[in-house]
Protein backbone atom coordinates (compact mmCIF):
# COMPACT_ATOMS: atom_id res chain seq x y z
CA UNK A 1 0.00 0.00 0.00
CA UNK A 2 1.24 3.47 -0.88
CA UNK A 3 0.03 6.37 1.27
CA UNK A 4 0.49 10.04 0.48
CA UNK A 5 0.10 12.10 3.65
CA UNK A 6 -0.17 15.86 3.08
CA UNK A 7 2.54 15.60 0.41
CA UNK A 8 3.66 18.91 -1.07
CA UNK A 9 6.26 19.70 -3.69
CA UNK A 10 7.18 23.36 -3.95
CA UNK A 11 10.04 24.51 -6.18
CA UNK A 12 12.45 27.30 -5.16
CA UNK A 13 10.81 29.67 -7.68
CA UNK A 14 7.53 29.31 -5.79
CA UNK A 15 5.79 26.96 -8.23
CA UNK A 16 3.67 24.44 -6.39
CA UNK A 17 3.68 21.16 -8.33
CA UNK A 18 1.80 19.12 -5.73
CA UNK A 19 -0.28 20.72 -3.02
CA UNK A 20 -0.98 18.78 0.17
CA UNK A 21 -1.89 15.49 -1.46
CA UNK A 22 -3.65 12.88 0.68
CA UNK A 23 -4.27 9.66 -1.18
CA UNK A 24 -4.03 5.91 -0.61
CA UNK A 25 -3.12 3.55 -3.43
CA UNK A 26 -4.64 0.10 -2.90
CA UNK A 27 -2.57 -3.08 -3.17
CA UNK A 28 -3.05 -5.21 -6.25
CA UNK A 29 -5.05 -2.56 -8.10
CA UNK A 30 -4.40 -0.16 -10.95
CA UNK A 31 -4.59 3.43 -9.71
CA UNK A 32 -4.50 6.06 -12.45
CA UNK A 33 -3.32 9.64 -11.94
CA UNK A 34 -4.91 11.77 -14.65
CA UNK A 35 -5.11 15.47 -15.33
CA UNK A 36 -4.00 18.26 -17.66
CA UNK A 37 -0.33 19.30 -18.07
CA UNK A 38 1.09 20.91 -14.97
CA UNK A 39 -1.29 19.19 -12.57
CA UNK A 40 1.49 17.40 -10.68
CA UNK A 41 0.55 13.84 -11.67
CA UNK A 42 4.03 12.89 -12.90
CA UNK A 43 5.68 14.68 -9.97
CA UNK A 44 3.48 12.68 -7.60
CA UNK A 45 4.47 9.44 -9.35
CA UNK A 46 8.16 10.26 -9.25
CA UNK A 47 8.01 11.04 -5.56
CA UNK A 48 7.08 7.40 -4.89
CA UNK A 49 10.52 6.12 -6.00
CA UNK A 50 12.35 9.27 -4.86
CA UNK A 51 13.22 10.48 -8.34
CA UNK A 52 11.83 13.69 -6.80
CA UNK A 53 11.76 14.36 -3.08
CA UNK A 54 8.74 16.15 -1.60
CA UNK A 55 9.21 19.42 0.28
CA UNK A 56 6.50 18.54 2.77
CA UNK A 57 4.48 15.58 4.00
CA UNK A 58 5.24 11.87 4.05
CA UNK A 59 4.94 8.97 1.63
CA UNK A 60 4.60 5.53 3.17
CA UNK A 61 5.29 2.34 1.23
CA UNK A 62 3.80 -0.61 3.13
CA UNK A 63 3.78 1.56 6.23
CA UNK A 64 7.43 2.57 5.98
CA UNK A 65 8.53 6.14 5.29
CA UNK A 66 10.34 6.02 1.93
CA UNK A 67 12.86 8.62 3.18
CA UNK A 68 14.36 5.86 5.32
CA UNK A 69 15.39 3.91 2.19
CA UNK A 70 18.48 4.50 0.06
CA UNK A 71 17.06 5.73 -3.28
CA UNK A 72 18.83 3.24 -5.62
CA UNK A 73 17.85 0.31 -3.40
CA UNK A 74 14.26 1.58 -3.07
CA UNK A 75 14.03 1.90 -6.87
CA UNK A 76 15.23 -1.65 -7.52
CA UNK A 77 12.13 -2.85 -5.66
CA UNK A 78 9.76 -0.67 -7.71
CA UNK A 79 9.24 -1.34 -11.42
CA UNK A 80 9.28 1.77 -13.60
CA UNK A 81 7.99 2.17 -17.15
CA UNK A 82 8.78 5.47 -18.81
CA UNK A 83 7.36 7.24 -21.87
CA UNK A 84 9.24 6.23 -25.07
CA UNK A 85 10.34 3.13 -23.08
CA UNK A 86 13.77 4.65 -22.24
CA UNK A 87 15.56 1.45 -23.22
CA UNK A 88 19.35 1.35 -23.12
CA UNK A 89 20.31 1.70 -26.81
CA UNK A 90 23.66 -0.06 -26.35
CA UNK A 91 22.25 -3.23 -24.85
CA UNK A 92 20.33 -6.01 -26.52
CA UNK A 93 16.67 -6.46 -25.73
CA UNK A 94 17.51 -9.41 -23.50
CA UNK A 95 20.13 -7.47 -21.52
CA UNK A 96 17.78 -4.50 -21.18
CA UNK A 97 15.22 -6.75 -19.53
CA UNK A 98 17.91 -8.35 -17.34
CA UNK A 99 19.08 -4.95 -16.01
CA UNK A 100 17.55 -4.96 -12.54
CA UNK A 101 18.31 -8.63 -11.71
CA UNK A 102 21.94 -7.94 -12.69
CA UNK A 103 21.98 -4.83 -10.48
CA UNK A 104 20.72 -6.81 -7.53
CA UNK A 105 23.46 -9.40 -7.95
CA UNK A 106 21.67 -12.21 -9.80
CA UNK A 107 24.06 -14.25 -11.95
CA UNK A 108 24.22 -13.41 -15.64
CA UNK A 109 22.85 -16.73 -16.85
CA UNK A 110 19.94 -16.74 -14.42
CA UNK A 111 19.11 -13.07 -15.14
CA UNK A 112 19.04 -13.73 -18.90
CA UNK A 113 16.89 -16.80 -18.51
CA UNK A 114 14.39 -14.81 -16.44
CA UNK A 115 14.53 -12.04 -19.05
CA UNK A 116 13.70 -14.54 -21.80
CA UNK A 117 10.62 -15.68 -19.87
CA UNK A 118 9.48 -12.08 -19.44
CA UNK A 119 9.82 -11.33 -23.15
CA UNK A 120 7.48 -14.23 -23.79
CA UNK A 121 5.09 -12.92 -21.15
CA UNK A 122 4.81 -9.54 -22.90
CA UNK A 123 4.29 -11.20 -26.27
CA UNK A 124 7.71 -10.90 -27.93
CA UNK A 125 9.20 -14.07 -29.40
CA UNK A 126 12.78 -15.11 -28.69
CA UNK A 127 13.92 -13.73 -32.07
CA UNK A 128 13.86 -10.26 -30.50
CA UNK A 129 16.26 -11.16 -27.68
CA UNK A 130 19.48 -10.41 -29.55
CA UNK A 131 18.25 -7.26 -31.27
CA UNK A 132 19.02 -3.72 -30.22
CA UNK A 133 16.19 -1.34 -29.22
CA UNK A 134 16.62 0.77 -32.39
CA UNK A 135 15.61 -2.27 -34.42
CA UNK A 136 12.20 -2.44 -32.72
CA UNK A 137 8.99 -0.52 -33.39
CA UNK A 138 7.70 1.89 -30.75
CA UNK A 139 5.12 -0.61 -29.54
CA UNK A 140 7.68 -3.41 -29.31
CA UNK A 141 10.05 -1.13 -27.38
CA UNK A 142 7.29 -0.35 -24.93
CA UNK A 143 6.67 -4.08 -24.40
CA UNK A 144 10.37 -4.48 -23.61
CA UNK A 145 10.04 -1.53 -21.20
CA UNK A 146 7.23 -3.34 -19.38
CA UNK A 147 9.27 -6.58 -19.30
CA UNK A 148 12.25 -4.70 -17.86
CA UNK A 149 10.08 -3.20 -15.13
CA UNK A 150 8.74 -6.64 -14.21
CA UNK A 151 12.10 -8.45 -14.29
CA UNK A 152 12.87 -8.29 -10.58
CA UNK A 153 9.23 -9.15 -9.80
CA UNK A 154 8.59 -5.94 -7.82
CA UNK A 155 5.26 -5.68 -6.00
CA UNK A 156 4.83 -2.07 -7.18
CA UNK A 157 4.89 -0.82 -10.76
CA UNK A 158 5.02 2.87 -11.69
CA UNK A 159 4.02 3.72 -15.26
CA UNK A 160 4.67 7.26 -16.50
CA UNK A 161 2.55 7.90 -19.62
CA UNK A 162 3.89 4.64 -21.04
CA UNK A 163 1.57 4.37 -24.03
CA UNK A 164 1.20 8.01 -25.06
CA UNK A 165 3.82 7.96 -27.84
CA UNK A 166 2.43 5.06 -29.88
CA UNK A 167 -0.36 5.06 -32.45
CA UNK A 168 -3.94 4.33 -31.31
CA UNK A 169 -4.08 0.73 -32.55
CA UNK A 170 -0.80 -0.23 -30.88
CA UNK A 171 -1.89 1.65 -27.76
CA UNK A 172 -5.07 -0.39 -27.60
CA UNK A 173 -2.98 -3.59 -27.87
CA UNK A 174 -0.63 -2.47 -25.10
CA UNK A 175 -3.56 -1.52 -22.85
CA UNK A 176 -5.21 -4.92 -23.36
CA UNK A 177 -1.91 -6.60 -22.61
CA UNK A 178 -1.47 -4.61 -19.41
CA UNK A 179 -4.94 -5.63 -18.22
CA UNK A 180 -4.17 -9.26 -19.09
CA UNK A 181 -0.84 -9.14 -17.25
CA UNK A 182 -2.45 -7.47 -14.25
CA UNK A 183 -5.12 -10.19 -14.05
CA UNK A 184 -2.27 -12.72 -13.70
CA UNK A 185 0.22 -10.74 -11.61
CA UNK A 186 -1.87 -8.56 -9.24
CA UNK A 187 0.74 -5.80 -9.00
CA UNK A 188 0.12 -2.51 -7.27
CA UNK A 189 0.23 -0.23 -10.30
CA UNK A 190 0.30 3.55 -10.37
CA UNK A 191 -0.31 4.74 -13.91
CA UNK A 192 0.02 8.34 -15.09
CA UNK A 193 -1.77 9.59 -18.20
CA UNK A 194 -3.31 12.77 -19.57
CA UNK A 195 -5.87 10.70 -21.48
CA UNK A 196 -9.11 10.32 -19.53
CA UNK A 197 -10.27 7.47 -21.81
CA UNK A 198 -7.12 5.52 -20.97
CA UNK A 199 -7.65 6.28 -17.28
CA UNK A 200 -11.21 4.97 -17.38
CA UNK A 201 -10.26 1.91 -19.39
CA UNK A 202 -7.37 0.83 -17.16
CA UNK A 203 -8.06 2.18 -13.70
CA UNK A 204 -9.62 0.38 -10.78
CA UNK A 205 -9.56 3.82 -9.22
CA UNK A 206 -8.83 7.15 -10.89
CA UNK A 207 -7.36 10.23 -9.23
CA UNK A 208 -8.18 13.38 -11.21
CA UNK A 209 -5.65 16.19 -10.59
CA UNK A 210 -6.24 19.84 -11.35
CA UNK A 211 -3.61 22.43 -12.27
CA UNK A 212 -1.70 23.51 -9.17
CA UNK A 213 -1.30 19.96 -7.93
CA UNK A 214 -4.59 19.51 -6.11
CA UNK A 215 -6.60 16.32 -6.09
CA UNK A 216 -10.02 17.05 -7.63
CA UNK A 217 -11.65 13.63 -7.27
CA UNK A 218 -10.56 10.09 -6.42
CA UNK A 219 -13.10 7.49 -7.39
CA UNK A 220 -13.91 4.42 -9.46
CA UNK A 221 -14.23 5.11 -13.20
CA UNK A 222 -17.99 4.52 -13.25
CA UNK A 223 -18.55 6.86 -10.31
CA UNK A 224 -16.32 9.45 -11.97
CA UNK A 225 -18.48 9.37 -15.10
CA UNK A 226 -21.76 9.27 -13.24
CA UNK A 227 -21.03 11.75 -10.47
CA UNK A 228 -18.21 14.17 -11.27
CA UNK A 229 -17.39 16.12 -8.11
CA UNK A 230 -17.42 19.55 -9.74
CA UNK A 231 -17.36 21.50 -12.98
CA UNK A 232 -13.64 20.90 -13.55
CA UNK A 233 -13.98 17.13 -13.30
CA UNK A 234 -17.10 17.02 -15.46
CA UNK A 235 -15.45 19.10 -18.18
CA UNK A 236 -12.24 17.06 -17.96
CA UNK A 237 -14.14 13.80 -18.11
CA UNK A 238 -15.60 15.08 -21.34
CA UNK A 239 -18.81 15.83 -23.16
CA UNK A 240 -19.73 12.30 -24.14
CA UNK A 241 -19.29 10.89 -20.65
CA UNK A 242 -22.91 9.66 -20.73
CA UNK A 243 -22.05 7.57 -23.77
CA UNK A 244 -18.82 6.32 -22.21
CA UNK A 245 -20.64 5.40 -19.00
CA UNK A 246 -22.51 2.80 -21.08
CA UNK A 247 -19.20 0.93 -21.14
CA UNK A 248 -19.74 -0.08 -17.51
CA UNK A 249 -23.18 -1.65 -18.11
CA UNK A 250 -23.42 -5.16 -19.50
CA UNK A 251 -25.65 -5.67 -22.48
CA UNK A 252 -27.47 -8.66 -21.03
CA UNK A 253 -30.89 -7.17 -21.68
CA UNK A 254 -30.27 -6.36 -25.32
CA UNK A 255 -32.09 -8.82 -27.61
CA UNK A 256 -30.03 -10.22 -30.48
CA UNK A 257 -32.28 -10.34 -33.54
CA UNK A 258 -31.90 -12.07 -36.87
CA UNK A 259 -29.56 -10.64 -39.50
CA UNK A 260 -29.27 -11.35 -43.21
CA UNK A 261 -25.98 -12.95 -44.26
CA UNK A 262 -24.58 -13.91 -47.62
CA UNK A 263 -21.49 -16.02 -48.28
CA UNK A 264 -18.75 -14.60 -50.44
CA UNK A 265 -19.02 -16.11 -53.91
CA UNK A 266 -22.85 -16.23 -53.92
CA UNK A 267 -24.91 -14.08 -56.26
CA UNK A 268 -26.03 -10.74 -54.86
CA UNK A 269 -29.30 -11.16 -56.74
CA UNK A 270 -30.42 -13.58 -54.05
CA UNK A 271 -30.41 -10.79 -51.42
CA UNK A 272 -33.83 -10.22 -49.89
CA UNK A 273 -33.51 -6.83 -48.24
CA UNK A 274 -31.25 -3.84 -48.76
CA UNK A 275 -28.21 -4.92 -46.79
CA UNK A 276 -26.66 -8.22 -45.83
CA UNK A 277 -23.47 -9.17 -43.98
CA UNK A 278 -20.94 -10.83 -46.24
CA UNK A 279 -19.39 -13.76 -44.38
CA UNK A 280 -16.59 -16.20 -45.08
CA UNK A 281 -16.79 -20.00 -44.90
CA UNK A 282 -16.56 -19.86 -41.07
CA UNK A 283 -19.46 -17.38 -40.90
CA UNK A 284 -17.09 -14.58 -39.84
CA UNK A 285 -18.12 -11.10 -41.04
CA UNK A 286 -16.08 -9.52 -43.84
CA UNK A 287 -18.20 -6.43 -44.49
CA UNK A 288 -21.60 -5.35 -45.76
CA UNK A 289 -23.07 -5.85 -49.19
CA UNK A 290 -26.16 -4.38 -50.85
CA UNK A 291 -27.74 -5.10 -54.20
CA UNK A 292 -26.42 -1.73 -55.24
CA UNK A 293 -22.83 -2.23 -54.12
CA UNK A 294 -22.64 -5.69 -55.68
CA UNK A 295 -24.42 -4.46 -58.85
CA UNK A 296 -26.27 -7.77 -58.91
CA UNK A 297 -23.02 -9.61 -59.58
CA UNK A 298 -21.20 -12.10 -57.43
CA UNK A 299 -20.39 -11.03 -53.84
CA UNK A 300 -16.62 -10.75 -53.57
CA UNK A 301 -14.11 -9.07 -51.31
CA UNK A 302 -13.88 -6.20 -53.83
CA UNK A 303 -17.46 -4.97 -53.70
CA UNK A 304 -17.99 -4.91 -49.91
CA UNK A 305 -18.80 -1.85 -47.83
CA UNK A 306 -16.64 -1.94 -44.74
CA UNK A 307 -18.54 -2.69 -41.57
CA UNK A 308 -18.60 -1.02 -38.17
CA UNK A 309 -17.46 -2.33 -34.82
CA UNK A 310 -18.53 -5.80 -33.68
CA UNK A 311 -20.62 -6.59 -30.60
CA UNK A 312 -19.44 -9.77 -28.96
CA UNK A 313 -22.01 -11.98 -27.24
CA UNK A 314 -21.08 -15.09 -25.36
CA UNK A 315 -23.92 -17.21 -26.68
CA UNK A 316 -22.58 -20.50 -25.30
CA UNK A 317 -22.84 -19.21 -21.72
CA UNK A 318 -26.23 -17.68 -22.42
CA UNK A 319 -25.13 -14.21 -21.31
CA UNK A 320 -23.35 -11.43 -23.12
CA UNK A 321 -19.77 -10.34 -22.74
CA UNK A 322 -20.08 -6.95 -24.45
CA UNK A 323 -21.21 -3.70 -22.82
CA UNK A 324 -24.11 -1.45 -23.77
CA UNK A 325 -21.47 0.82 -25.30
CA UNK A 326 -20.19 -1.98 -27.55
CA UNK A 327 -23.75 -2.82 -28.60
CA UNK A 328 -24.72 0.78 -29.32
CA UNK A 329 -21.51 1.50 -31.18
CA UNK A 330 -21.96 -1.62 -33.32
CA UNK A 331 -25.42 -0.37 -34.33
CA UNK A 332 -24.38 3.25 -34.89
CA UNK A 333 -21.27 2.41 -36.92
CA UNK A 334 -23.01 -0.07 -39.19
CA UNK A 335 -24.07 1.13 -42.69
CA UNK A 336 -27.35 -0.74 -42.28
CA UNK A 337 -28.07 0.59 -38.74
CA UNK A 338 -28.02 -3.01 -37.52
CA UNK A 339 -24.96 -3.86 -35.45
CA UNK A 340 -23.32 -7.23 -36.06
CA UNK A 341 -23.29 -9.52 -33.03
CA UNK A 342 -20.60 -12.20 -33.03
CA UNK A 343 -19.81 -15.08 -30.70
CA UNK A 344 -16.49 -15.54 -28.90
CA UNK A 345 -15.08 -17.25 -31.99
CA UNK A 346 -15.99 -14.28 -34.21
CA UNK A 347 -18.86 -15.90 -36.12
CA UNK A 348 -22.01 -13.87 -36.84
CA UNK A 349 -24.91 -14.78 -34.54
CA UNK A 350 -27.34 -11.93 -35.15
CA UNK A 351 -27.91 -8.18 -35.08
CA UNK A 352 -28.63 -5.43 -32.55
CA UNK A 353 -30.32 -2.08 -33.14
CA UNK A 354 -29.86 1.22 -31.34
CA UNK A 355 -33.45 1.38 -30.04
CA UNK A 356 -33.10 -1.98 -28.28
CA UNK A 357 -29.91 -0.72 -26.60
CA UNK A 358 -31.70 2.40 -25.39
CA UNK A 359 -34.59 0.29 -24.14
CA UNK A 360 -32.12 -1.86 -22.20
CA UNK A 361 -30.60 1.31 -20.73
CA UNK A 362 -34.06 2.48 -19.63
CA UNK A 363 -34.57 -0.91 -17.92
CA UNK A 364 -31.22 -0.60 -16.19
CA UNK A 365 -32.18 2.85 -14.91
CA UNK A 366 -35.47 1.58 -13.55
CA UNK A 367 -33.80 -1.29 -11.75
CA UNK A 368 -31.27 1.10 -10.21
CA UNK A 369 -28.19 -0.28 -11.98
CA UNK A 370 -27.25 3.16 -13.22
CA UNK A 371 -25.85 5.41 -10.51
CA UNK A 372 -27.75 8.70 -10.53
Amino acid sequence: MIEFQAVTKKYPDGTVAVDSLDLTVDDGKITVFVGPSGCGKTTSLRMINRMIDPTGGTILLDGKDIRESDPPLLRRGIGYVIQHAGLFPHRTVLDNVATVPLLTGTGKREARQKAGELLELVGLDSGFAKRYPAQLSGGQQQRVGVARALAADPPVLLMDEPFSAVDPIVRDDLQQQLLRLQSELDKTIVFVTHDIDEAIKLGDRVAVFRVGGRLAQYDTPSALLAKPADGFVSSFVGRDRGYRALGFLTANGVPVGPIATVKVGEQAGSLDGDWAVAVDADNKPLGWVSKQSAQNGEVSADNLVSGGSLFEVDSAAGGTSGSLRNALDAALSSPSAVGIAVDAGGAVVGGVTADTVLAALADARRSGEVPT
Partner: protein
Amino acid sequence: MNVDWPWPWLPRNIDDIAEATGEHLYLALLPVLFGLLVSIPLGWAASRWPIARGILVPLAGVLYTIPSLALITLVPLLLGTKIIDPLNVQVPLAIYTIALLVRSVSDALIAVPGDVTAAATAVGYKPARQFLTVELPLAIPVIVAGLRVATVSAMSLASVGALIGIGGLGGLITEGFKRNNAVEMVVAIALIVIIALVIDALLLLTGRVITPWTRARQRTAVKS
Protein backbone atom coordinates in the same frame (compact mmCIF):
# COMPACT_ATOMS: atom_id res chain seq x y z
CA MET B 1 62.23 9.29 -63.11
CA ASN B 2 64.68 7.04 -61.38
CA VAL B 3 62.60 4.79 -59.11
CA ASP B 4 65.66 3.72 -57.15
CA TRP B 5 66.30 7.16 -55.77
CA PRO B 6 65.81 6.41 -52.00
CA TRP B 7 68.63 3.91 -52.33
CA PRO B 8 71.22 3.56 -50.89
CA TRP B 9 70.31 6.09 -48.18
CA LEU B 10 67.30 4.18 -46.86
CA PRO B 11 68.85 0.73 -46.08
CA ARG B 12 71.90 2.35 -44.60
CA ASN B 13 69.84 4.40 -42.13
CA ILE B 14 67.06 1.92 -41.38
CA ASP B 15 68.01 1.64 -37.68
CA ASP B 16 67.94 5.42 -37.22
CA ILE B 17 64.58 5.62 -38.99
CA ALA B 18 63.13 2.88 -36.77
CA GLU B 19 64.40 4.61 -33.66
CA ALA B 20 63.00 7.96 -34.79
CA THR B 21 59.64 6.32 -35.51
CA GLY B 22 59.50 4.74 -32.07
CA GLU B 23 60.40 8.05 -30.49
CA HIS B 24 57.76 9.83 -32.53
CA LEU B 25 55.04 7.42 -31.39
CA TYR B 26 56.14 7.82 -27.77
CA LEU B 27 56.13 11.61 -28.11
CA ALA B 28 52.71 11.75 -29.78
CA LEU B 29 50.60 8.90 -28.37
CA LEU B 30 51.37 9.06 -24.67
CA PRO B 31 50.02 12.63 -24.38
CA VAL B 32 46.86 11.60 -26.30
CA LEU B 33 46.22 8.75 -23.89
CA PHE B 34 46.86 11.00 -20.90
CA GLY B 35 44.69 13.73 -22.43
CA LEU B 36 41.83 11.27 -22.94
CA LEU B 37 41.97 10.14 -19.32
CA VAL B 38 41.89 13.75 -18.09
CA SER B 39 39.19 14.83 -20.55
CA ILE B 40 36.63 12.26 -19.38
CA PRO B 41 36.18 13.67 -15.84
CA LEU B 42 36.49 17.26 -17.13
CA GLY B 43 33.95 16.59 -19.90
CA TRP B 44 31.67 14.92 -17.39
CA ALA B 45 31.84 18.02 -15.16
CA ALA B 46 31.13 20.25 -18.16
CA SER B 47 28.12 18.12 -19.13
CA ARG B 48 26.73 18.17 -15.63
CA TRP B 49 27.16 21.77 -14.48
CA PRO B 50 26.53 24.65 -16.88
CA ILE B 51 29.02 26.79 -14.92
CA ALA B 52 31.79 24.23 -15.48
CA ARG B 53 30.91 24.10 -19.15
CA GLY B 54 30.92 27.89 -19.36
CA ILE B 55 34.51 27.92 -18.10
CA LEU B 56 36.01 24.74 -19.57
CA VAL B 57 34.77 24.90 -23.15
CA PRO B 58 35.88 28.50 -23.94
CA LEU B 59 39.16 27.86 -22.10
CA ALA B 60 39.77 24.78 -24.25
CA GLY B 61 39.08 26.87 -27.34
CA VAL B 62 41.62 29.49 -26.30
CA LEU B 63 44.29 26.90 -25.44
CA TYR B 64 43.91 25.31 -28.86
CA THR B 65 44.65 28.59 -30.60
CA ILE B 66 48.09 29.02 -28.94
CA PRO B 67 50.71 28.30 -31.62
CA SER B 68 52.50 25.01 -30.98
CA LEU B 69 55.97 26.55 -31.30
CA ALA B 70 55.14 29.13 -28.65
CA LEU B 71 53.80 26.50 -26.28
CA ILE B 72 56.76 24.19 -26.81
CA THR B 73 59.28 26.94 -26.02
CA LEU B 74 57.25 28.20 -23.03
CA VAL B 75 56.82 24.84 -21.30
CA PRO B 76 60.46 24.44 -20.16
CA LEU B 77 60.28 27.89 -18.60
CA LEU B 78 57.03 27.10 -16.81
CA LEU B 79 57.86 23.53 -15.75
CA GLY B 80 61.58 23.99 -15.16
CA THR B 81 62.33 20.96 -17.33
CA LYS B 82 65.61 20.58 -19.18
CA ILE B 83 65.65 21.88 -22.72
CA ILE B 84 65.73 18.41 -24.32
CA ASP B 85 63.21 16.73 -21.99
CA PRO B 86 60.46 14.92 -24.01
CA LEU B 87 57.93 16.45 -21.61
CA ASN B 88 58.50 19.76 -23.38
CA VAL B 89 56.68 18.28 -26.36
CA GLN B 90 54.36 15.90 -24.51
CA VAL B 91 52.86 18.49 -22.17
CA PRO B 92 51.75 20.79 -25.03
CA LEU B 93 50.36 17.82 -26.96
CA ALA B 94 48.41 16.71 -23.89
CA ILE B 95 47.04 20.26 -23.58
CA TYR B 96 45.91 20.23 -27.23
CA THR B 97 44.32 16.81 -26.76
CA ILE B 98 42.43 17.95 -23.67
CA ALA B 99 41.38 21.14 -25.47
CA LEU B 100 39.85 19.03 -28.25
CA LEU B 101 38.37 16.24 -26.17
CA VAL B 102 36.77 18.14 -23.29
CA ARG B 103 34.27 19.50 -25.72
CA SER B 104 33.74 16.12 -27.45
CA VAL B 105 33.21 14.29 -24.17
CA SER B 106 30.87 16.92 -22.80
CA ASP B 107 28.84 17.13 -26.04
CA ALA B 108 28.64 13.34 -26.22
CA LEU B 109 27.39 13.06 -22.63
CA ILE B 110 24.87 15.86 -23.10
CA ALA B 111 23.55 14.03 -26.17
CA VAL B 112 22.66 10.90 -24.17
CA PRO B 113 18.83 10.94 -24.31
CA GLY B 114 17.16 12.20 -21.14
CA ASP B 115 14.72 9.30 -21.01
CA VAL B 116 17.65 6.85 -21.04
CA THR B 117 19.36 8.50 -18.06
CA ALA B 118 16.00 8.88 -16.28
CA ALA B 119 15.29 5.19 -16.87
CA ALA B 120 18.75 4.25 -15.56
CA THR B 121 18.12 6.24 -12.39
CA ALA B 122 14.62 4.83 -12.04
CA VAL B 123 15.71 1.18 -12.23
CA GLY B 124 18.17 1.80 -9.40
CA TYR B 125 21.63 2.54 -10.81
CA LYS B 126 24.00 4.28 -8.43
CA PRO B 127 25.60 7.38 -10.04
CA ALA B 128 29.13 6.00 -10.67
CA ARG B 129 27.92 2.75 -12.20
CA GLN B 130 25.34 4.61 -14.27
CA PHE B 131 28.08 6.83 -15.68
CA LEU B 132 30.47 3.98 -16.47
CA THR B 133 27.97 1.47 -17.85
CA VAL B 134 25.26 3.61 -19.43
CA GLU B 135 26.35 7.17 -20.20
CA LEU B 136 30.01 6.64 -21.14
CA PRO B 137 29.36 3.73 -23.55
CA LEU B 138 26.70 5.79 -25.32
CA ALA B 139 29.21 8.64 -25.67
CA ILE B 140 31.83 6.43 -27.34
CA PRO B 141 31.05 7.25 -31.01
CA VAL B 142 31.46 11.01 -30.47
CA ILE B 143 34.50 10.58 -28.21
CA VAL B 144 36.19 8.32 -30.78
CA ALA B 145 35.58 10.92 -33.49
CA GLY B 146 37.29 13.54 -31.31
CA LEU B 147 40.08 11.14 -30.43
CA ARG B 148 40.83 10.51 -34.11
CA VAL B 149 41.25 14.23 -34.75
CA ALA B 150 43.41 14.59 -31.62
CA THR B 151 45.63 11.64 -32.55
CA VAL B 152 46.27 12.68 -36.14
CA SER B 153 46.99 16.23 -35.09
CA ALA B 154 49.35 15.02 -32.31
CA MET B 155 51.24 12.86 -34.84
CA SER B 156 51.81 15.91 -36.99
CA LEU B 157 52.46 18.40 -34.16
CA ALA B 158 55.04 16.13 -32.53
CA SER B 159 57.41 16.97 -35.43
CA VAL B 160 57.57 20.56 -34.22
CA GLY B 161 59.62 19.26 -31.29
CA ALA B 162 62.53 18.91 -33.69
CA LEU B 163 62.89 22.69 -33.64
CA ILE B 164 63.92 22.51 -29.97
CA GLY B 165 65.97 19.38 -30.55
CA ILE B 166 63.44 16.74 -29.45
CA GLY B 167 63.50 14.45 -32.40
CA GLY B 168 61.14 11.81 -33.54
CA LEU B 169 60.54 11.81 -37.25
CA GLY B 170 60.56 15.62 -37.15
CA GLY B 171 64.28 15.32 -36.35
CA LEU B 172 64.84 13.60 -39.70
CA ILE B 173 63.06 16.45 -41.47
CA THR B 174 65.24 19.17 -39.91
CA GLU B 175 68.36 17.06 -40.38
CA GLY B 176 67.52 16.42 -44.04
CA PHE B 177 66.90 20.14 -44.50
CA LYS B 178 70.27 21.04 -43.02
CA ARG B 179 72.14 18.42 -45.10
CA ASN B 180 70.13 19.21 -48.20
CA ASN B 181 68.97 15.57 -48.24
CA ALA B 182 65.55 15.45 -49.92
CA VAL B 183 65.27 11.67 -49.51
CA GLU B 184 65.54 11.88 -45.74
CA MET B 185 62.87 14.61 -45.59
CA VAL B 186 60.47 12.79 -47.89
CA VAL B 187 60.85 9.48 -46.06
CA ALA B 188 60.16 11.17 -42.69
CA ILE B 189 57.11 13.04 -43.98
CA ALA B 190 55.74 9.92 -45.68
CA LEU B 191 56.18 7.90 -42.49
CA ILE B 192 54.35 10.51 -40.40
CA VAL B 193 51.43 10.50 -42.85
CA ILE B 194 51.30 6.71 -43.17
CA ILE B 195 51.49 6.09 -39.43
CA ALA B 196 48.82 8.72 -38.80
CA LEU B 197 46.53 7.08 -41.34
CA VAL B 198 47.12 3.61 -39.89
CA ILE B 199 46.40 4.76 -36.33
CA ASP B 200 43.33 6.65 -37.54
CA ALA B 201 42.07 3.50 -39.25
CA LEU B 202 42.73 1.43 -36.12
CA LEU B 203 40.77 3.90 -33.98
CA LEU B 204 37.90 3.90 -36.46
CA LEU B 205 37.83 0.12 -36.49
CA THR B 206 38.08 -0.21 -32.70
CA GLY B 207 35.31 2.34 -32.29
CA ARG B 208 33.06 0.33 -34.57
CA VAL B 209 33.83 -3.00 -32.93
CA ILE B 210 33.03 -1.76 -29.43
CA THR B 211 29.75 -0.07 -30.48
CA PRO B 212 27.82 -2.82 -32.32
CA TRP B 213 24.49 -1.13 -31.61
CA THR B 214 25.27 1.82 -33.87
CA ARG B 215 25.52 -0.49 -36.88
CA ALA B 216 22.40 -2.40 -35.87
CA ARG B 217 20.54 0.88 -36.25
CA GLN B 218 21.79 1.35 -39.79
CA ARG B 219 21.01 -2.21 -40.84
CA THR B 220 17.37 -2.10 -39.93
CA ALA B 221 14.97 0.66 -40.80
CA VAL B 222 13.36 2.03 -37.65
CA LYS B 223 9.64 1.58 -37.65
CA SER B 224 7.73 3.91 -35.44
